């Protein structure tokens, strides 16, 4: 359905240099949305830009019937998004695509790159903390992003988290994949994963997703990746957004990121074609 959702909130977060915005939409999307899905949003009633923009659902409030998205201004479309005012209505398709599997027990390791942290946060929201242990590994450019995102103190909110930044301004200096490797190499984890109890969900830039997947697979840890691809229709009709996968017989196939994704089993994704 094409929904007209009401914009409850649309504001810049933190430092202007980050160009990071938060938008809250009120309407029907929240009713059926699950973490990992996305919405396809019309940024303006105009031929230029022509297409809708895909944005991940990063918060779902079924009671208030609100979903939250976070976006970074990178071009014309996201720039126009910032101009939408509160109480305006926007045209939205969604929720679209597949979501993350929600584990019922064991340990869930979230591996986030940059703004990819937000969709993963929505997973934390829905997980049963009594039965599932959650840990978040985050890597990004610098401290400013986390400050702007309001996540600098997230550990105080009970989230077990390790961070790394390229410039070392927060956490360890380096890539999140280093955090991941040292975590998986640790003894305690080995025990858990031998029980088949550890799962990884990851969201971030493509290069990172590939590295995370390879590390996980070499440790025999199942991993779900949230892919991004340029999209036109968002509903599986145009074949614009495909990724390559290998099926069980080893044949190369296409999957549509908007329909069979964006969340896919990392094992099947062919990263370099």
């Amino acid at each position: 359905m094409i929904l007209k959702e009401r914009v409850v909130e649309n504001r810049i977060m933190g430092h202007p240099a980050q160009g990071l915005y938060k938008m809250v939409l009120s309407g029907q999307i929240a009713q059926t949305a699950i973490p990992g899905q996305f919405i396809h949003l019309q940024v303006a009633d105009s031929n230029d830009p022509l297409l809708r923009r895909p944005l991940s659902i990063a918060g779902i409030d079924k009671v208030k019937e609100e979903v939250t998205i976070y976006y970074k201004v990178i071009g014309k479309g996201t720039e126009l998004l910032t101009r939408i005012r509160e109480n305006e209505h926007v045209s939205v398709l969604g929720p679209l695509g597949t979501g993350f599997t929600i584990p019922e027990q064991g340990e869930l390791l979230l591996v986030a790159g940059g703004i990819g942290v937000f969709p993963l946060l929505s997973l934390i929201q829905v997980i049963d903390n009594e039965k599932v242990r959650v840990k978040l590994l985050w890597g990004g450019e610098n401290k400013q992003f986390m400050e702007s995102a309001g996540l600098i103190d997230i550990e105080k909110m009970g989230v077990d988290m390790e961070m790394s930044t390229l410039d070392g301004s927060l956490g360890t200096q380096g890539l999140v994949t280093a955090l991941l490797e040292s975590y998986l190499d640790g003894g305690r984890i080995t025990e858990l994963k031998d029980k088949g109890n550890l799962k990884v969900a990851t969201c971030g830039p493509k290069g990172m997703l590939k590295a995370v997947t390879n590390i996980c697979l070499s440790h025999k840890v199942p991993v779900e990746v949230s892919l991004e691809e340029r999209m036109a229709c968002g509903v599986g009709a145009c074949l614009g957004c495909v990724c390559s996968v290998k099926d069980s017989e080893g044949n190369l196939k296409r999957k549509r990121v908007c329909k069979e994704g964006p969340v896919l089993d990392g094992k099947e994704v062919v990263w370099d074609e």
Partner: protein
Amino acid sequence: MSKVNLKTELAVLKLRNPIITSSGTYGFGEEYAPYCPPSLLGAITVKGITPLPRLGNPVPRLAETPAGLLNSVGLENPGLEEFKKSYLPKLPGLDTEVIVNISGFSIEDYTFLASAFQSDSGIAALEVNISCPNIKHGGMAFGTHPESAQEVIATVRKNTDLPIIAKLSPNVTDIAEMAKAVERGGADIISLINTLLGMSIDIRSQKPVLANKMGGLSGPAVRPIAVRMVYQVYEAVDIPIIGMGGISTWQDAVEFMLAGASAVSIGTANFVNPMAPIDILTGLEEYCQQRGYGSVREIVGLAHQR
């Protein structure tokens, strides 16, 4: 309550109304069903089918341009066999006329594809995409030379008893000449335009945005070119025309019909507004009603009379 007769006859192809959705933009008819019931449409056109399955081009396959969209899907499709097995049986359930779009890279491909579809195949017509490169002849598209275009259509004509829609490429010097060629070849209907060859370069990476370098331009940007071509083809041939290229609103659809299209097809606009086909149908009907036309047919080609 409308008194406008929407029935549309394109030669032997009879549609409940003149609104069609375009090949490659409407999947296999199911993707948009939750947004826009296919049963309300005149017809839907499925993604181009080739003899063998194709993975198509690598990504990025899409680039946005001012009021336009470049795509280089590269004819990804399940191939004829899989199409007939897994998709064709579901199409009658959509309760609309189905046009199957076929694409080949040699005359043999078209022969093979045409033979596979007959009037008992549960579809309404074959749309022949002649914009693909002719691999045996230096890779120029069939649809850019009158002789090869005519030959493709004649081959399809010989091998199927379904109505044939020849889909013209706009990347030609003289569209009227191409239209005459496919008419000679035995086409029942002409559809136009396919996409215009275009390109976009990323100034950051200094590389073409599309992995395939070039792609097909569609969307509102191309509309004036499409309208011009429909207008020219209307004067050149005696067979009916399905107009397309950047139609987003009912006003655009009326423009194409005044230019000479008996039906219109909606492509890129679906991506922006999945209800576009229905919105366009409604607006078209109101336009006719307000101006006192008893049938939507009456506006076809009116721009030529004055």
